């Protein structure tokens, strides 16, 4: 069935056949794209698979007119085109949903959608009503539910992404580029997005889906092209490749999914949390009477859909937000009202959930970021004076040990790829002597190689006798790492349970709010009096 979504507008959305031929792009010191050939047929979902830094985003930025290729050409329906800017690409029918959304938070959905291609009535008045109608129509047609009058700032990340997609469709995008769209989504939102992609495909639109998540790639792809080191290393259809084959293509060597590890040998209690409640910035109870312990030599993972209090729990444990009630102790030391520095000094390592906001200083060098919480202690400081030579020497060591891909320790951390930024954070925290490691979403948005590496380091930490607490909304990760597993739902915690007593399905149920009652002893909604 082919409905024409642009019937009400002067421009038609036409099917596009997109060809990239020999695209090459060099950045100082990096060959980001090396003679890449790629064809996107009309009405197909073409998955671009590759590790961070494989050149996926660069290639798409070229296609979208943000970069100019050094060599090669782009053909649309067989005709060579040259894009000077994204507006050229948009006019040709190419739409892009970036990793970081390009929306104006104080505008409504409809206003954001019409921005830049405003419909006007006589006297140049904005035709908001038509824009609203168009948003509703596109939303209904492709299952992109969003209220046209809602302010973007009040929307969830998933809803904002839907607005971005509607924005592209509104501009008659025949080809839609989605740059790592699922990196920011919850599992439910991801499923929803994959359904939207199906319906777009049925309507004759082509999709370029950039990802490094193999499951999603296999689920929706008509064709999968794998990039590595700026080159196409293979192209296949999902039926002909298994996940581990794809993973091997991405990283260049066969890779085990999941972590081999000996059973845990837990000893004494390190983290002791009792009846902890935390209120969020609006005064709502975000963490509700949570009690659990983490012992030396074990990994406790906390599963849960994002936004169920995990973030607030970790911030409270680190002394970053005040707690309402309860008690926190680490290795027998009371840290209930400790400052972040006191908590870190007590031997707690912390890999924060949002590495760009909380984990790194983008404008600081890699070397400086590697000492961000230990810059004031010897050998990095001699009294009040820093020792830049020591900082640099240590940075070079960390870069080697953790295989951080950076030209040198003095480049700004913000210029590294996401995976390497996370390696900087991990290298810093894992190199400090700690008794307890708290890591939130330690591998979110990372490529398979980095995930495998970070998981190995976490297990190594455990086997060394540290207590480890991992918060993750990635069920695979929760299962791969957890010796004991807890689930958070609406501020309450179920468990932790022995991992061997749990099934994937049971955890999934608890994440959705079912099954917590089954554990009994669930108090009422009121906090402790």
């Amino acid at each position, binding site marked *: 069935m082919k409905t024409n979504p642009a019937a009400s507008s002067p421009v038609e959305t036409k099917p596009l056949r997109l060809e990239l031929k020999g695209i090459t792009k060099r950045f100082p010191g990096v060959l980001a794209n090396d003679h890449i050939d790629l064809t996107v047929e009309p009405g197909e979902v073409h998955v671009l698979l590759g590790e961070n830094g494989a050149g996926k985003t660069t290639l798409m930025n070229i296609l979208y007119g943000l970069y100019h290729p050094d060599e090669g050409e782009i053909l649309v329906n067989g005709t060579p085109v040259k894009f000077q800017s994204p507006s050229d690409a948009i006019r040709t029918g190419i739409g892009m949903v970036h990793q970081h959304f*390009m929306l104006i938070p104080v505008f409504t959905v409809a206003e954001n959608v019409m921005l830049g291609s405003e419909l006007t009535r006589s006297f140049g008045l904005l035709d908001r009503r038509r824009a609203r109608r168009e948003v509703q129509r596109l939303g209904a047609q492709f299952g992109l539910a969003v209220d046209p009058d809602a302010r973007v700032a009040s929307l969830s990340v998933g809803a904002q992404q839907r607005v971005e997609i509607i924005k592209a469709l509104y501009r008659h995008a025949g080809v839609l580029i989605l740059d790592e769209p699922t990196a920011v989504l919850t599992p439910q939102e991801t499923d929803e997005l994959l359904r939207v992609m199906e319906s777009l495909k049925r309507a004759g639109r082509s999709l370029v889906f950039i990802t490094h998540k193999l499951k999603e790639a296999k689920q929706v792809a008509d064709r999968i092209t794998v990039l590595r080191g700026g080159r196409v290393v293979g192209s296949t259809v999902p039926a002909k490749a298994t996940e581990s084959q794809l993973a091997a293509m991405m990283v260049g060597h066969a890779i085990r999914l999941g972590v081999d590890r000996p059973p845990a040998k837990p000893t004494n209690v390190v983290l002791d949390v009792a009846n902890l409640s935390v209120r969020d910035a609006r005064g709502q109870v975000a963490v509700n009477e949570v009690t659990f312990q983490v012992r030396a030599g074990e990994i406790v993972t906390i599963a849960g859909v994002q936004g169920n209090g995990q973030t607030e729990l970790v911030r409270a444990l680190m002394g*970053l937000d005040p707690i309402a009630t309860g008690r926190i102790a680490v290795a027998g030391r009371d840290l209930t009202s400790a400052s972040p520095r006191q908590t870190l000094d007590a031997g707690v390592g912390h890999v924060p959930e949002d590495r760009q906001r909380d984990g790194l200083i983008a*404008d*600081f060098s890699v070397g400086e970021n590697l000492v961000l919480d230990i810059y004031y202690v010897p050998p990095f400081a001699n009294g009040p*004076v820093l020792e830049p030579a020591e900082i640099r020497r240590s940075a070079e060591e960390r870069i080697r040990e953790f295989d951080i891909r950076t030209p040198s320790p003095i480049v700004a951390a913000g210029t590294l790829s996401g995976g390497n930024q996370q390696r900087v954070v991990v290298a810093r925290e894992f190199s400090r002597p700690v008794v307890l490691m708290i890591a939130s979403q330690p591998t979110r948005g990372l490529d398979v190689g980095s995930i495998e590496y970070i998981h190995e380091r976490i297990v190594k930490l455990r086997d060394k006798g540290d207590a480890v607490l991992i918060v993750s909304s990635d069920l695979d990760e929760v299962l791969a790492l957890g010796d004991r597993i807890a689930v958070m739902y609406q501020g309450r915690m179920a468990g932790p349970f022995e991992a061997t007593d749990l099934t994937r399905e049971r955890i999934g149920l608890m994440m959705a709010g079912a099954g917590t009652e089954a554990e009994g002893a669930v108090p009422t909604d009121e906090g402790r009096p």
Partner: protein
Amino acid sequence: MSSEPDHAPGRDRASAARAVIQKIIAPESSAWSSLLVVVLAFVTALVVSAVFIIASDPAVFQAPDFTIALYNAWQDVAGAYGSLLSGALGDPSTIGSDLTTGTASGLAHAFYPLSETLVAAAPLVFTGLAVALGFRAGLFNIGAEGQVIAGGLAAGWVGFSVHGWPGFIELPLAILAGFAAGALWGFVPGLLKARTGAHEVITTIMLNYVAIYLTYYFLGTRIFQRPGRSDPISKAVDSGAMLPNLAGLNLRVHAGVILAVLVAIAVYFLLWRTVVGFEFRAVGANPDASRTAGIGVGRVVVLAMSMAGGLAGLAGANVILGVQYSVTPGFSSGVGFDGITVALLGRGNPAGVIAAALLFGGLRAGAVQMQASTSTPVDLVQVIEALVIMFVAAPALIRALFRLRTERVIARAAISPGWGG
């Protein structure tokens, strides 16, 4: 009730302001390329200002024909910029003969412009550093003017109160008093920001007025007012508390110039070689990550504002102890506000601040000569200063004007996250 400013509403605005500051101090292009932009911005400013010079001369418009008008216009511009240059650096036509005479008056004549430039530049170095230090810590210290006044008042008070002590005690004591009073003027907005989230731009502007009118009050009290005078002027600073003259020969250049350079070096060392400086820069670049890494953001804000205030206070001490030797209303003559421009032009970098202060010091010194020997008003220098800053603030304009490479700048701007990134 949380006392942390991090959770205050208006955090988005605060981070937007921080983004602006980051853009100033961490330009996206190389050091050479941004130096080129500054030089070209200066040239452009001179060209645009030439239009104002020509427009302000009625003779050009009343000229009988176009050639004469053009000649008049050329005369105006060449005369104005020529005297500006000779007022700042020296008159190229006489400097040679002045030097070869070897007499005291010859040397004095040759070096007078340079001495004036240095005297004008020294307080700008201090205030430029005061604003630059704030930038590094993510703070917009608009209050340098008030901090200068507070510092000058305190330095003057100590300066005229001490008598007959050895100079090596009197002078440091007076300078220290200037630093301390300026630091107090910075400490208050710092504390207000750390405790309540009050924005430093608002509080420092208000404290500027407090300082200005406190000066009038103090100059009317028996402690300050010079005996036998009814106008607002303080007692004279004791000679032991004066910054020593460096050259003699009736030139005004004094030890404050050396102090300015030493302090600039100290600020550089503080920012890039000390634990405290690391914290300043960390909080300035990303307060969230700093807090997560255990840095006390509130403490850094208070400390950075206090130090910035102290630096501006040194400018006040420098003016009172090195040039004026007594406190009068308006002694600061806007060096605090010019410090903002100097810090912007110097990209929040101590070496850049010295260079920018020399440039603006030269413009100030040259302006006096220009006014004396041509019909161009001294205010033109303010126009040039403003235009330089405008063009420096719009590097894209300068790059487009002179067809410098731009691809990278545009690409970065185009893909930078709209929000939440």
